């Protein structure tokens, strides 16, 4: 086998794979944030906590009710998305007319409450979640061994990203959403229930976070702080991709995960900071982000 700059190919491909997996999580999480930001103009700080909640709900479904991974993949996002809709109705709606920084502060407070609740009941140590039987094992690709579940994460993330893109860009519901993003007053003058649309959108964005959480449960340990630092990296991803840009979130998520993985191979010291450095560069060259509209 060939060697690249003295790096054994197994290590290289391994890190590329890890990078893509991280990128899959970045993409799904930043996609949820972008969908919410597009219509509500708020940054959902609680996104990381709701991602954690998605993983925990999957664990609870399995532990207390024996509901397996496949069902949890659907049920957990529905439950967490429902909680998200309640949050929007009760807490975020009263702030709708105010400066959007208040919504950021509110969702920050919410993050503390959610994280605190789970810590209180489950402690900070991780809960194991088994990989579903059908997805255990590895495939030998010749140049490397590919764990099936890891490939599954990437495939699922791609499907969900494409599905969300299709829903927003190509369907009637999506056209309501885009129209309401542009001019909510006009949309309400057509008889469309914009407050309901806002609630559903927030719920959908939150459900995406929970979906990412369920996908993460078998590979990362399920614990109350699992979303803490991840979410800040995701913020950087959407600053780079462009606030509210669906394409920016998806492409930015995967490619930055990949860049991070490659950095781990060639210059491991910088692997946790590389995304922030890229963010600084993007801010210098195109402050509205790569796919962003001018702000």
């Amino acid at each position, binding site marked *: 086998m060939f060697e690249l700059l003295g790096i054994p190919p197994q290590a290289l491909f391994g890190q590329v794979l890890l990078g893509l997996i991280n990128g899959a999580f970045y993409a799904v999480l930043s996609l949820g944030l972008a969908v919410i930001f597009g219509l509500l103009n708020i940054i959902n700080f609680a996104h990381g906590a709701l991602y954690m909640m998605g993983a925990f709900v999957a664990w609870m479904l399995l532990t207390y009710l024996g509901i397996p991974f496949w069902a949890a993949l659907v049920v957990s996002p529905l439950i967490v998305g429902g909680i998200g809709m309640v949050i929007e109705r009760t807490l975020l709606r009263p702030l709708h007319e105010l400066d959007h920084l208040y919504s950021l502060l509110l969702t920050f407070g919410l993050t503390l409450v959610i994280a605190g609740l789970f810590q209180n009941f489950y402690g900070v140590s991780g809960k194991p979640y088994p990989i579903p039987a059908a997805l255990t094992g590895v495939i030998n690709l010749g140049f490397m061994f590919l764990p099936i579940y890891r490939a599954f994460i990437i495939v699922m993330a791609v499907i969900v990203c494409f599905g969300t893109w299709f829903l927003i860009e190509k369907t009637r519901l999506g*056209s*309501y959403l885009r*129209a309401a993003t*542009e*001019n909510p007053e006009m949309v309400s*003058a*057509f*008889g469309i229930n914009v407050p309901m649309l806002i609630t559903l959108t927030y719920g959908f964005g939150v459900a995406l976070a929970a979906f990412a959480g369920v996908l993460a449960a078998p590979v990362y340990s399920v614990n109350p702080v699992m979303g803490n630092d991840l979410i800040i990296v995701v913020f950087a991803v959407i600053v780079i991709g462009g606030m509210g840009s669906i394409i920016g979130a998806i492409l930015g998520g995967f490619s930055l995960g990949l860049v991070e993985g490659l950095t781990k191979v060639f210059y491991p010291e910088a692997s946790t900071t590389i995304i922030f450095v890229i963010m600084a560069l993007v801010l210098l060259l195109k402050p509205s982000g790569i796919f962003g509209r001018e702000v």
Partner: protein
Amino acid sequence: MTHTTEHPGTIAPASQSGTMLEVSGLNGWYGESHVLHDVSLRVDAGEVVTLLGRNGAGKTTTLKAIMGLLKNRSGSIRFQGSELIDAPARTIAKMGVGYVPDDRGIFGSLSVMENLLLPPKVAEGGFELPAIYELFPNLKERLDSYGNKLSGGEQQMLSIARILRTGARFMLMDEPTEGLAPVIIHQIGRTVRRLKKAGFTILLVEQNFHFARELADRHYIVQEGRVIDEIRNDEVTDNLGKIQGYLGI
């Protein structure tokens, strides 16, 4: 302005004659400032009625208040017998009030087709797409273009066309001729006449008096947020001096 108030006891179907819209004692506020003062007006089924007045007289605000887009309002707005003063815009739209705003309200990030299909149907009997293309041939050519790529005239036609599809029989039209070339204005005038013939009821805000007198049955004069006069179209010739005084033309 005097006319007796008739409250239809039951909700009359759109096709019947009688009062369609009855606004009385309508007041409106933008924040602290009181912008509409006891506005009263009436539109009968099948009529084209205009609100005439100078810039900033409160014509657009009156339409917005009727549509529920000016939220801070009081008084009475009865549409086909139902009180709308506390209803949100979406309820008013669902009752069959179509809104063609002064900025045309075209969504730039949506294609022409998506703009056309956006407003949900509110009643049976709306125009089918072929009928719309027949009325506005230009739009058919541009279905895949994005809203922000359209000319002003095309945007205006799209803004009217998408309401026709919904089945609404009553339209609030805000200065459809503003900033358009004479040939386009002519086309829009023809469209409004065809709609009237088809039984549509239209409350039209206009600054272009010549356009308005070609189409309307009656005119209300709006000044400083008040309705100060009502003139039937067949009396216009006798009152030209007065109207020119109101409008400053």
